[in-house]
């Protein structure tokens, strides 16, 4: 293996790969360059990319350390994936307290990006459930961090983009479940007002809410989509193993040529998806509910060899309607459609992380095939709207926001720099801090 790409497969740069299989493994000596952890490669942009530097590959550091089956607390090495954790905990009646849309993320990556899920409005981010973690630093060695021990370093490490040192283990609280099934309801909405109303109504009684939105619909249809809400089912009988669904995985065997995904095919997909017959309610296994795309291994190859960009922003609720309308109009006009556009209302639960992305408001996640400058300028237009509305962009999915935008979104970044390990850096971090404080 000589390449380590992020999920968006952009940028593709030269870096030295160095597997770290044990918590106390020696790191390569560096002089001019820097280190950065790289887990399962599921962040999209360049937060886990280190151009010209060393990537510490943590995939082999994937052991369980302790599992308290009564209290629901698990401690694992940081390279382990959520999929492996689910395999262990689900048969014992426990579930991840927060999960992103793929179970193939590493635990360390989940902490470093302070990931969120469909239950953000009730639970907050993954970082809210971390009780303690082991952080190995180049200058101070192993530091145990929690709310009470090294609390500042703890807050900096949650959502700290892997810059505060190497996260070697993490302990976190689980959620009790009595079934592996989810009671799900779907409802179509025809505009953003309806989406907001549905989200607010569902917030209290539904643990998981999310919406798919047709980002190619114009004028009268702008903002139409499908709203999903779900709760863990109660006592559905026998527990099914989480592996039940993984066995039928499909795979994208190669890069699709760039022309396959065009305005027409994406528009057709969105039309069909919106008009497909929907069962209004039903009971589904947690796997297809949380991880629909995990069924297709390497789905990122759909976007061809040039890769793709993700764009995820959050807009404060008061500005959300106007700003989201602007964003959707810009996208629809650009003709650079996104397949999987996801909309969700975040709650106001604060994240412990210093640099965490989630905050109260509406979040929109989009993906765009990399068409070079054309796509970059579209993203710059979206950034302008997000900035004007007082929003922020998610580093884990970003590969091109400007330094000045980042510094406006995250004014606390200068405080954060005090906690960065002197030997650690990333392509992302150099990009968003290179021009000093924004004017």
């Amino acid at each position, binding site marked *: *293996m*000589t390449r380590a790409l992020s999920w968006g497969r952009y940028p593709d740069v030269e870096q030295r790969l160095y*597997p770290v*299989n*044990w*918590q*106390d493994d020696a790191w390569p000596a560096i002089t001019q360059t820097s280190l950065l952890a790289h887990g399962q490669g599921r962040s999209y942009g360049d937060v886990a990319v280190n151009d010209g530097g060393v990537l510490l590959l943590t995939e*082999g550091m994937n*052991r*369980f*350390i*302790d*599992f308290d089956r009564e209290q629901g607390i698990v401690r694992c090495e940081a390279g382990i994936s959520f999929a492996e954790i689910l395999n*262990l905990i689900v048969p014992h009646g426990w579930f991840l307290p927060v999960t992103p849309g793929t179970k193939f993320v590493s635990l360390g990556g989940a902490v470093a990006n302070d990931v969120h899920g469909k239950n953000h409005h009730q639970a907050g981010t993954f970082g809210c459930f971390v009780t303690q973690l082991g952080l190995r630093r180049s200058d101070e060695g192993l530091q145990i961090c929690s709310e009470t021990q090294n609390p500042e370093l703890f807050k900096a490490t949650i959502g700290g983009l892997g810059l505060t040192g190497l996260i070697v283990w993490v302990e976190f609280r689980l959620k009790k479940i009595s079934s592996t099934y989810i009671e799900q309801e779907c409802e179509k909405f025809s505009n953003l007002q309806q989406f907001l109303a549905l989200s607010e109504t569902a917030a209290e009684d539904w643990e998981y809410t999310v919406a798919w939105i047709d980002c190619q619909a114009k004028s009268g249809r702008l903002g139409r989509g499908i709203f999903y809400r779900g709760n863990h089912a109660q006592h559905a009988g026998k527990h099914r193993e989480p592996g039940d669904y993984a066995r039928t995985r499909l795979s994208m065997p190669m890069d699709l040529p760039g022309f396959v995904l065009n305005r027409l095919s994406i528009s057709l997909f969105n039309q069909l998806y919106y008009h497909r017959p929907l069962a209004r309610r039903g009971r589904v296994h947690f796997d297809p509910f949380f991880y629909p795309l995990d069924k297709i291994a390497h789905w990122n190859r759909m976007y061809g060899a040039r890769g793709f960009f993700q764009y995820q922003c959050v807009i404060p609720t008061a500005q959300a309607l106007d700003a989201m309308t602007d964003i959707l109009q810009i996208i629809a006009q650009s003709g650079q459609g996104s397949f999987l556009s996801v909309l969700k209302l975040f709650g106001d639960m604060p994240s412990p992380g210093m640099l965490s992305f989630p905050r109260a408001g509406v979040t929109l996640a989009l993906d765009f095939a990399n068409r070079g400058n054309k796509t970059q300028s579209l993203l710059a237009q979206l950034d302008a709207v997000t900035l004007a509305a007082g929003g922020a962009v998610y580093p884990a999915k970003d590969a091109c926001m400007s330094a000045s935008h980042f510094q406006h979104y995250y004014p606390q970044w200068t405080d954060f720099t005090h906690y960065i390990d002197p030997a650690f850096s990333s392509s992302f971090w150099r990009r968003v801090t290179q021009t000093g404080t924004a004017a």
Partner: protein
Amino acid sequence: MKRVLILGASSAIAEHTARLFAQRGDRLLLVARNTQRLKTISDDLRVRGALDCDYRVADLSDTSTHDTLLNEASTQLGGLDIVLIAYGTLGEQKACEQDFNAALKELQTNCLSVLSLLTLLANQMEQQGSGTLAVISSVAGDRGRQSNYVYGTAKGAISIFLQGLRNRLSKSRVQVLTIKPGFVDSPMTRDFDKGLLWVKPAVIAQGIYRAIDKQKDVVYLPFFWRYIMFIIKLIPEKIFKRLSL
């Protein structure tokens, strides 16, 4: 529930195989040199479902300790159902060419000490009339090549020894499994450039687990190495000796 002894338990292949045993609730005893690693691995295996998992620290290249070690291990587990021998070093071929003492050390670790263990274990299993001896050899033992023939010699000798042992123990219903992995992306091969043929230790582990389950004799992992090595073995020596392999 099987009683499983793993010799060289901190190797990546052994660790991943042990996870599969742990998941089905086996009782495990691990042997390796590094206490901290053994503790880390046995904690993990217990969480994954091992009925019990303990460890012993030993340098297995020292044959004088083998008799005691195996007796104690057998007592502690209450018998032996499966023994996996998984330790080894990928010595420096160039150093071995310059200094026979370096070669001797490689042969002691990768071959002679393994034969010592097998001698003792074979007698025990022959007597009990059951059990599995699974040993990690290598495709490198199928034909000598200039790039690693000392390692290849050690592995080749093990393969032949196991062949004879299998013949001897077949009437005692003891499974003797020769495992021949190809290129494995593990800490042992950290400094190699990895190409298409390389696989993760977890893939090899699955193959070992299945081969034990199916009472196989010799297994190439992944399977396609059987065909690669078949072709490599067919090349006439006249031509083979001129290849840079």
